[in-house]
């Protein structure tokens, strides 16, 4: 029973139609949650006792930074599925993830720089957390560059998949960099197991915002996935039924 589901997920027309149906759900809920989270965080939440209003950039910086890593894991898992079980749609998912992940990483770095100036006095410091996050950006760009350098699509898929899987070692390094090394960057405020070190009125908009951005990633991924599937399957017969002229 589960294997039928798994194999159906490997069928491009099925995935295309599923993505088409799910996109509005993701898009609308993302819009609502992001707006709610940002309003709560930027307007309603109290200012931080140390940083004043400057800390509010956390409501964009933390979700984008977290997503920059989560998207990489998602991309690596899709790439591994495509590599091991030779499911071509999985490669489409990975290909669609990469530019989104790179953008989120860039935004995380950018918002981090804007926050760094008032907090540490400099836009950029060569600190472990920042450096490894920058490396994440290079990994995404490397993945996209490797893909683009092959004419044969199958070769591009499989070679970049190996790269994505190899690069996943960077994710735990980024996460634990603030634990393993003395870092200027603050440690985790959120914890699944221990007590959160952030005050509740500030925590709620952060969580809402994170969920909102994650759903936004989902929506954009679904749109890009559809485009990727269309591009790859343009010669197939089912396309004419789906694409209205």
């Amino acid at each position, binding site marked *: 029973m589960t294997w039928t589901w798994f194999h159906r997920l490997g069928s491009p027309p099925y995935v295309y139609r599923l993505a088409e149906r799910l996109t509005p759900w993701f898009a609308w809920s993302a819009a609502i949650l992001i707006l709610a989270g940002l309003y709560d965080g930027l307007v309603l939440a109290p200012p931080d006792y140390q940083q004043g209003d400057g800390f509010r950039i956390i409501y964009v910086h933390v979700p984008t930074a977290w997503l920059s890593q989560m998207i990489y894991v998602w991309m690596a898992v899709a790439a591994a599925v495509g590599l091991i079980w*030779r499911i071509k749609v999985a490669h489409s998912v990975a290909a669609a993830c990469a530019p989104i992940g790179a953008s989120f990483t860039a935004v995380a770095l950018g918002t981090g720089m804007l926050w760094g100036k008032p907090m540490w006095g400099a836009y950029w410091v060569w600190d472990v957390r920042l450096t490894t996050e920058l490396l994440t950006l290079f990994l995404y760009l490397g993945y996209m560059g490797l893909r683009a350098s092959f004419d*044969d*699509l*199958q070769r591009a898929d499989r070679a970049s998949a190996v790269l994505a899987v190899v690069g996943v070692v960077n994710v735990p390094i980024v996460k634990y960099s603030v634990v393993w090394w003395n870092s200027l960057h603050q440690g985790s405020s959120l914890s699944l197991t221990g007590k959160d070190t952030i005050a509740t009125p500030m925590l709620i908009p952060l969580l809402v915002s994170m969920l909102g951005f994650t759903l936004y990633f989902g929506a954009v991924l679904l749109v890009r996935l559809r485009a990727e599937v269309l591009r790859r399957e343009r*010669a197939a017969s089912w396309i004419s039924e789906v694409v209205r002229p």
Partner: protein
Amino acid sequence: MIGSVLRAENLHLWRTERHVLKGVDLRVCGGELLQLTGVNGAGKTTLLRALCGLNHLEEGRVFWNEHDVCEDLEGFHASLVYLGHEPPLKPDLSGIENLGFWTGMRRRISRAAINDALIRTGGGEFATRPVRTLSAGQKRRVALAGLLLAAVPLWLLDEPTTNLDSSGQELVAMLLEAHLDAGGLAIAAVHHGLGIAASRLRELNLSA
């Protein structure tokens, strides 16, 4: 070696969007040569590489002695030798050094044995010269000696008579006949017949 069988059923392969192998079936037994014919681009090289496991088959299975080769690909490789368009000889090494390396990867080999094989394929005189000083035909004779030294039952050959003059083509026929006599089997992609007795010959035309 006696009784070896290579069988393939329903092989399908796509190269980007081109359906190159469309349900190919074949069966070769010990003592037989299968000639693959077809126009350029018909898929002869692709089929040879797919049988080896280099190219991925979307569908279909290959059986060596009734075992699926996917279960023990390295064992299957140990029983075959593949000779492509360009023999993989390093230009800066001599024929003997090249063959010593390739055969040594499979089993221990003495210099005398390598020399004997080279003499059999007419490469004795230029065995110690660097391969970059040899003509294309001479290189092919060195490569053919490699076939002998591999001492394996299955030969997969992609246009084995390329660059060879008429005596060279006779040599290939002779080597094949000896191999088939010993119970070995061979699959060769060719543009024209190799001159093997019809009783041991099978043909598969990929353009059809």
